[in-house]
Every structure is written in structure tokens, then in C-alpha cells.
């Protein structure tokens, strides 16, 4: 007697059955994949055009795909239909509960709707699933801040800035604004725990006119500060007209302000990038070329050679240097000049002006048109009550014609400044 279960026919039937099931499963998978793929394609179109019908179709094609619901929510949000966006994001988060970005989006939409508690709950979920990521902490911190929970808010904001340094300037800015410009309170709220944070705070304080505090913070972080950090802060201080502090950053702390030129004899190299207390030469100058000349210096090994080749703006500063001075003091400037075949209606001269107000304080006589040998020129000026720094500039006299060309050569050397008793 044959066993029915082990015969060739039932085996064939079993195989066919399995094959049919497999084919059906494959067809199902193909169908699901096609629907999901098509849903994503329609979703992309919906995002490009902010079309609700297209986004709805993406959802109906793949109702269990959280991305489709997210797409519809994005379209709703863009059109400020936040109720619809909230519903879609709630569905999306239920389908993919571990996605911190979905929770963040839900939190933002709830915040838009004025549901701060709901938003906080969503942000809490985002932080739960991404506790070390900056974005989740930053969003929750901002919400807590607006809810008035300052200590919790700053704990989150600090954590975010610790994870992502890009948030540090924002954190300092918020602490500064909230403490109404109180440096100490800002420092405490930010809770500086490394030198990079201190340098960031120093830059911020310099920009906000707190030069003394900026320099103090920088000194605390000096061990880690690079030359670029230092130059950057000096630029910020100069922009804020805090010349004394900028000078201190370059030369160390000084109690006594002694007026002095940096490289008055032009012995060092010239740089277009000098922004603080050296000779400043504008990068773009028409009709003028400036170089160091070692052929006939008045003192040392070099002098400054300026060649005029035609039209140039008479009021433009060709070279300049900022010098620290004392208020209400008299000073004398000495320098050597040599000229060759200078032809112009507006001869060059040296002027001194207040570094903050720009008020002219004094100027040298106009340079001679031709002097085969060096001439030493001097002139005096008095600083104003509020003058802490002056700017020495090589300029030209006023010109009666426009354009006002100039041709010829000028050499300068041996700049010095002395305080008059």
C-alpha cells in the first residue's frame, strides 16, 4: 500500500503551492515597493509645488510610510495650516517613534499653534532619542527660554553649544540680551568652561563696546589663543574705537601711554593686511605705487618710496598709522622727506586727525616740488579732551580742479613723535 503523503504527486503539489505563495509574496512586495516609491515621487513633486492634493495622494499610496505624512505636514506648515500639519506629524511619529527630527517638527508645529506644553513634550521626546545632538537641545532650550524657565533653558542651550560650537555665539548673544548687557551675568549664564568659549565671549564683548572686559577674557584664554584669534580681536577693538585695549593686546598691559610710531623708519616689511598699529596701506590705489627703497635712506637701511603716475584722489589716505596719545596734550611730529620732479596742483603733506571723530588736529607744510637731498619737517598739534588716539596720514592738499593729477617721486623716512611739556 502506497503512503499518500510521500508519493510524487503530493510533493509536486506542495512545491507548486510553495512556489505560488512565494510568487504571491513577491508580487505583494513589488506592489508595496511600487506604491512606496510612487508615493515618494509624488511627495517630492508635492514639496516642490506645495500641492496639498499631491501630498494627500502620497499619503493614500503609502499610508504606513511616515515620510508621506511628513511630506503632507511640510506642505501644510508652508501654507500655515498648522492643525493639519500637527495631525500628520502625530501620525508620522506614531509610525516612526524613534526619529528625533519628526519629534522636533511636531514640537515646532505645536509651538506655532501656541501649545507650548505639547511642544515641550515633543521636544522632550526629541531629546530622549537624540540626547547628545545639539539641534534637539537647542530647540528645547529656546522653548524653555520663552516659557520663562531660564535655568533649565540655559542648561539645554549650553549643552547644545557644547555639542555644536556653531551655537556658541547665539548662546552668548541670548545670555547678553537676557541679562540686559551685564557682563558678569552673561559669563555666569554661559558658564565658560574652556578657552574657545572665552575667546568667543571676548569677540562678542569687543563688538558690544566692552573693550576692557574683552581683553580680560582674552588674557584668561591666552594660552590657547592663536595669532589669528588675537588679530581678529584687535580688528574688533579697532572697529569699536577701543584703541588703547587693541594696543594692549599687541604690546601687553601698559599704565603709561607713550606716543610712539611703529617702524617710523620703514625698516620692516610693509603689509596690506596690517590693521592695528603698523603702517596701513590701502590695497587698491589708482595712480600711486608704494615700495620700500634701500638706495638713499635718511636713516637706517630703507625709506618709503611713493611714485605718482597720474590721477589720484587728493583726499585719499595713501599710507596711515594709528598712534596712541594722551588727551589734552601737545605733540610734535618729525619726519624726513625727499622729492623729485613732483608736478601737481595739490602737493602731498602729512596730516593728523582724531582717530574717533576724524577731526583734523594738525598738518605739515606741503612737501617741496623738488629737493635733491632729505629735508626734515616738523609740525605740532594738540589733542582734544576725548582724544586717545590719532591717525597720521599721507594725503594731498585740496585741489581746485577735478581730476587732479600728480606726477613725480616722494621718499619718506624717520617718523618720530615727541610729547611737549
Amino acid at each position: 500500500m502506497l503512503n499518500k503523503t510521500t508519493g510524487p504527486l503530493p510533493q509536486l503539489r506542495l512545491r507548486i503551492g510553495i512556489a505560488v505563495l512565494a510568487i504571491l509574496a513577491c508580487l505583494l512586495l513589488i506592489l508595496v515597493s511600487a506604491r512606496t516609491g510612487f508615493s515618494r515621487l509624488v511627495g517630492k513633486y508635492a514639496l516642490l509645488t506645495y500641492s496639498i492634493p499631491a501630498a494627500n495622494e502620497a499619503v493614500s499610496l503609502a499610508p504606513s510610510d511616515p515620510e508621506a505624512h511628513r511630506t503632507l505636514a511640510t506642505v501644510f506648515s508652508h501654507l500655515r495650516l498648522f492643525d493639519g500639519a500637527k495631525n500628520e506629524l502625530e501620525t508620522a511619529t506614531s509610525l516612526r517613534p524613534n526619529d528625533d527630527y519628526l519629534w522636533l517638527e511636531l514640537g515646532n508645529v505645536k509651538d506655532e499653534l501656541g501649545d507650548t506644553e505639547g511642544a515641550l513634550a515633543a521636544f522632550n521626546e526629541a531629546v530622549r532619542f537624540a540626547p547628545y545632538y545639539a539641534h534637539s537641545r537647542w530647540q528645547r532650550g529656546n522653548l524653555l527660554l520663552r516659557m520663562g524657565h531660564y535655568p533649565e533653558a540655559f542648561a539645554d542651550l549650553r549643552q547644545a553649544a557644547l555639542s555644536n560650537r556653531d551655537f556658541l555665539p547665539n548662546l552668548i548673544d541670548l545670555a547678553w540680551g537676557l541679562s540686559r548687557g551685564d557682563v558678569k551675568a552673561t559669563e555666569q549664564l554661559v558658564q565658560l568652561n574652556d578657552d574657545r568659549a572665552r575667546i568667543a565671549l571676548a569677540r562678542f564683548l569687543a563688538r558690544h563696546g566692552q573693550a576692557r572686559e574683552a581683553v580680560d577674557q582674552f588674557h584668561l584664554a591666552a594660552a590657547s589663543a592663536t595669532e589669528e584669534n588675537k588679530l581678529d580681536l584687535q580688528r574688533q577693538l579697532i572697529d569699536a574705537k577701543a584703541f588703547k585695549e587693541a594696543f594692549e593686546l599687541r604690546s601687553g598691559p601698559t599704565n603709561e601711554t607713550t606716543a610712539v610710531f611703529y617702524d617710523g623708519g620703514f625698516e620692516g616689511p610693509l603689509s596690506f593686511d596690517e590693521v592695528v598699529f603698523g603702517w596701513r596701506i590701502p590695497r587698491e590705489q589708482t595712480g600711486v605705487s608704494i615700495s620700500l627703497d634701500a638706495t638713499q635712506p635718511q636713516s637706517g637701511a630703507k625709506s618709503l618710496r611713493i611714485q605718482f603716475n597720474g590721477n589720484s584722489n587728493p583726499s585719499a589716505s595713501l599710507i596711515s598709522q594709528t598712534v596712541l596719545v594722551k588727551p589734552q596734550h601737545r605733540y610734535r611730529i618729525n619726519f624726513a622727506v625727499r622729492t623729485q620732479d613732483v608736478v601737481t596742483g595739490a602737493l602731498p603733506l602729512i596730516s593728523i586727525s582724531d582717530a574717533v571723530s576724524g577731526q583734523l588736529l594738525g598738518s605739515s607744510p606741503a612737501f617741496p616740488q623738488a629737493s635733491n637731498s632729505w629735508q626734515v619737517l616738523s609740525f605740532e598739534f594738540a589733542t582734544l579732551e576725548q582724544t586717545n588716539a590719532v591717525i597720521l596720514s599721507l594725503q594731498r592738499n585740496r585741489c581746485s580742479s577735478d581730476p587732479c593729477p600728480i606726477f613725480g617721486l616722494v621718499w619718506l623716512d624717520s617718523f618720530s613723535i615727541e610729547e611737549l611739556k
Partner: protein
Amino acid sequence: MSLKQRKCLTAIGTVLLFSIAQISVQVGFAQPAAGGLPVPPQQFIARLTTRNNLAITVNGNGAATGSSILTGATIETGPDQSATVNLGPLGVLDIAPNTKLVLTYDEHGNVKVMLLQGCAVLATRKKTEGEITTQQGSAGKTDRKQGGILDVCFPPGASSPVVNQGAAVAAGAGAGVGAPAGAAAAGAGGLFGIGVPATIAILVGAGSAALTPVFFQNNPSGAV
């Protein structure tokens, strides 16, 4: 003084001393911890929403949706950026692309926008007085009793601002308000109501993707 009285006085003194010590300890505990975090005074803080969550510039730093905007903030948008500042009970400020402004507000219902360049729409609620100023002075104010809307554009180099002519909305302030794209597409026909051209584009795209393996096999030379 008898021994009994002396013992009684000693007991009372001990109890008193203990009580004073307890008070001191409790007062000590009640003091705020030295060096603790300062608690800033409570103040209303506005909320920023940026278009497509693109970062704009607030006080020189990048800021996106959800950022807090404190009073006195300088807000700047780039060419493809627009933003909305939700001022809660005070109103809403919509900022168009290429705009720079300084926003100040307080709890007493005052909102002031110093428009340095660009376009903005300030909508204030009742009990709030809103004002937009430019370098030329005040461009307009809203009524404190009624609230109102100010639509101001002050392009770079302009001699005077354009006020309440819809210029700021046209420039993109409040972009995303209403349902332009979706509403337009709703009646456009085609598959899913997304319009005939879009339907054709999607179907052609999907068809091309599906048929790619058929036309482009592994061996491009066709050799066996």
C-alpha cells in the same frame, strides 16, 4: 538662688540656645547659594520662523525656526530668505528677502521696527502700538485701540519708503501665507488633481525608471 532655680535657668538657657541655633541653621539654608546662576528678570521673548527652515541672520549669527528673538535684535534676510517673528500678544512681523531691520518691543504693548533696508509687514493686535521707522523718520503707526497692519518697503538708495501699497507682501514678506500653490493645483485636473503636465511628468519619470533595466543591460556592447 537655690540649686533648683539654678538648674531651671540652665535648662531654659540651653533650650533658648538650641532654638537660636536652629533658626540660624534654617536662615543659613534659606540663603541663595553663593556663586549660583543669576536669574534674569522675566520678559516676553518672541519666536522666529524662517521660510523652509533656512537660517537667516540675527545679531550677526545664524538663526532658524524656533530661535528666540530678544528685543533690540538686528534681523537680516538674504536673497531667498524670508521670516516671521511671532510677537505673541503683540502681533506678527513678516520680513521679506533682502531686508535688514532692528526690532524692539516691550511688555507695555509697544513694537518698533527700524527698517534699515528692504520690506516688512507689521501686524499688531489690539492694545499694541506698532511703528515702522526708516532713516527718513516714521513711516507709519498702527492704532493702539484697534491694532492694524503696516506694509513698508524701503529699498536701498530710495529717497522715501513705500507705505501700505502692498509692496512688502509683493516682495515676499509673509511668503507662505494662504494656499497659493496648493489651491491652484487643487482644480488643475489630471491624475490626483495635480495637473495634466505634472501627471505626465510623474508617469514618464516612473516609466523611465522602471524600464531602465530593460533597455540598459549590464553589457552595453550587446555582445554575448
